């Protein structure tokens, strides 16, 4: 168990290194900079001011020097200062991290608690009404764009029915969380319902399920004793992938609901060419992805002895 954890953590190191390199290179080659957008806006016309800022930010230093500096600072947790607000990026991100996590976790809980049981029921009663309805729902759920779904939710529950606040973070209470979490969680929920159904059907055809039946086990026991955990192994992969990519998907939803999360920080920073903030956001999102992946691998090891003893 511990060995699995250690191995996974060691695996993360080169990945993080590669990510840092890519993030750095990406932003040293893309055109446009904070100073140039400033010039376009007509806010910062004085070339001397621009010159001073470029110096201060070290934008004209040789690339290797800048890379060394970037890596060094990043490794000690210094993500630089925002071009825009002059605050440390870590503080900007710190303020946004909890709302983002809260949204992602709520969305994922919704997706898991609804999608997985739905898939199970559908698989155990193939061709039934539950099956047909949920699978049609899942397919349409997968093809609905998030912003459209978000707008519909806002319209229905916020404007028409007036049950829930239709945007903003408010006091951070659950009432504000529900609509964005539904909008964000719907796609993963639909996908999970489908993968769970496929996984359960797959396991139901396995030889060991036939063995279980040959023992004289009732079908409900066959499912609870032998099918569920085996299907879960397959489902966890999807849960992990969906959870990991949720942070990225949250960009649209956060923006739509004016949710003060990493996603909206990222979008704002991109428009402002606030490169340290953008780099910081991406790094945190990628780290989140890696952490989730590690957790998924640990979950595998807990469930599957073939991995635990490997």
């Amino acid at each position, binding site marked *: 168990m511990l060995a699995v954890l250690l191995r996974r953590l060691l695996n993360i190191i080169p990945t993080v290194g590669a990510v840092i390199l890519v993030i750095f290179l990406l932003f040293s080659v893309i055109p446009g900079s904070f100073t140039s957008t400033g010039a376009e806006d007509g806010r910062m016309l004085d070339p001397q001011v621009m010159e001073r800022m470029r110096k201060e930010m070290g934008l004209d230093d040789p690339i290797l020097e800048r890379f060394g500096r970037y890596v060094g600072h990043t490794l000690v947790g210094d993500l630089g200062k925002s071009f825009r607000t002059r605050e440390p990026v870590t503080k900007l991100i710190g303020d946004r991290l909890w709302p983002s996590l809260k949204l992602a976790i709520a969305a994922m809980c919704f997706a898991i608690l609804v999608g997985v049981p739905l898939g199970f029921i559908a698989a155990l009663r193939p061709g039934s009404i539950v099956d047909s309805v949920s699978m049609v729902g899942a397919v349409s759920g997968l093809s609905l764009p998030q912003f459209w779904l978000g707008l519909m939710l806002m319209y229905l529950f916020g404007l028409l029915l007036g049950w829930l606040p239709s945007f903003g973070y408010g006091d951070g209470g659950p009432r504000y969380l529900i609509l964005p979490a539904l909008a964000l969680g719907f796609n993963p929920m639909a996908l999970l319902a489908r993968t769970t159904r496929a996984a359960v059907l797959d396991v139901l055809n396995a*030889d060991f399920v*036939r063995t*279980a039946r040959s023992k004289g086990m009732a079908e409900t026991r066959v499912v609870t004793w*032998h099918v569920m955990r085996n299907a879960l192994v397959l489902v966890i992969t999807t849960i992990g992938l969906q959870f990991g990519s949720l942070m990225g998907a949250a960009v649209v939803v956060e923006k739509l609901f004016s949710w003060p999360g990493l996603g909206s920080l990222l979008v704002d920073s991109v428009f402002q060419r606030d490169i340290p903030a953008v780099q910081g956001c991406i790094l945190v999102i990628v780290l989140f992805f890696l952490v989730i992946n590690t957790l998924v691998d640990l979950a595998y090891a807990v469930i599957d*002895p073939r991995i635990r003893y490997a």
Partner: protein
Amino acid sequence: MSAPLLEVENLSIALSQGGKSYKAVEDVSFAIASGETLGLVGESGCGKSITALAVMGLLRQPLSLGGGRITLDGGDIHNLPPAKLRQLRGKRIAMIFQEPMTALNPLSTVGRQIAEMFVLHAGAGWSEATDRTVDALRQVHVPSPERRVKDFPHQLSGGMRQRVMIAIALACSPDLLIADEPTTALDVTVQAEIVDLMQELCAAKGTAILMISHDLGLVANMCRRVAVMYAGRIVEQQAADEIFERPQHPYTRGLIASLPRLGARIVHGRQRLQEISGVVPAITAFPAGCRFRPRCQRATDICQSNDPPPTPLPEDGLVRCHHHG
């Protein structure tokens, strides 16, 4: 012959495919007396496994019971309510499958998978069941059973897994054990051990065996009677020694001729296997008349036009061939 324990009469199994219904198995009849051993032999795909599954009541779509009767101690088992049928399964009729690699749940300890039998059929609690599991493993000669109960299937060799399957199957001392090619997937050296173990335990418990195999040699060694199956039908059924000395059906002859002759091989170096040419026809394309005709050297016109009826042989035997003998 004493009153049969299991009697299968005119069993047919329907296969529905592309909106049509085919008979994957047709008119199959056999009987097994208490403690007796019957062999069911035939090439791959001739319907041995699905016949076994039909007896277990485990046929699943697209296969289903098409007709006939299966009785255990004189009681029809397929008109039983599902809950009653489940009580027979595992407790009175148990089955061992061909593939020990996939027949066990990879996520459960083998101990737990054996213990389930005691919980299901002997009303035992989990802790009592676990104690009995150690005994069950000892009975199938698994070394250090106290430790092995905690092992997962992937930690055991194929032979050990098949021993676990035998422990599961015989846990509740069933009246009938259906062994569906229990040794096909194993090393030759392990095969004999497993067969011996199965015979020894079944003899001790008075369990009858339906031994399914494509190896006529193996079956003839361990069974009193042998039924030979071809393309969904039993084409010959006789006492084991009789079938070797006086095979009646050309297919049986072919099977015997294709057995490797160990002695001959030593003398002549490599002995060419005398095989039956051609393959078993697909269910959807069974030929009219005798189903073995396309591969039969004795075939004549009548074989093409008429389906050979079963001809009785002495001692409850039968053969299905126009030119038998």
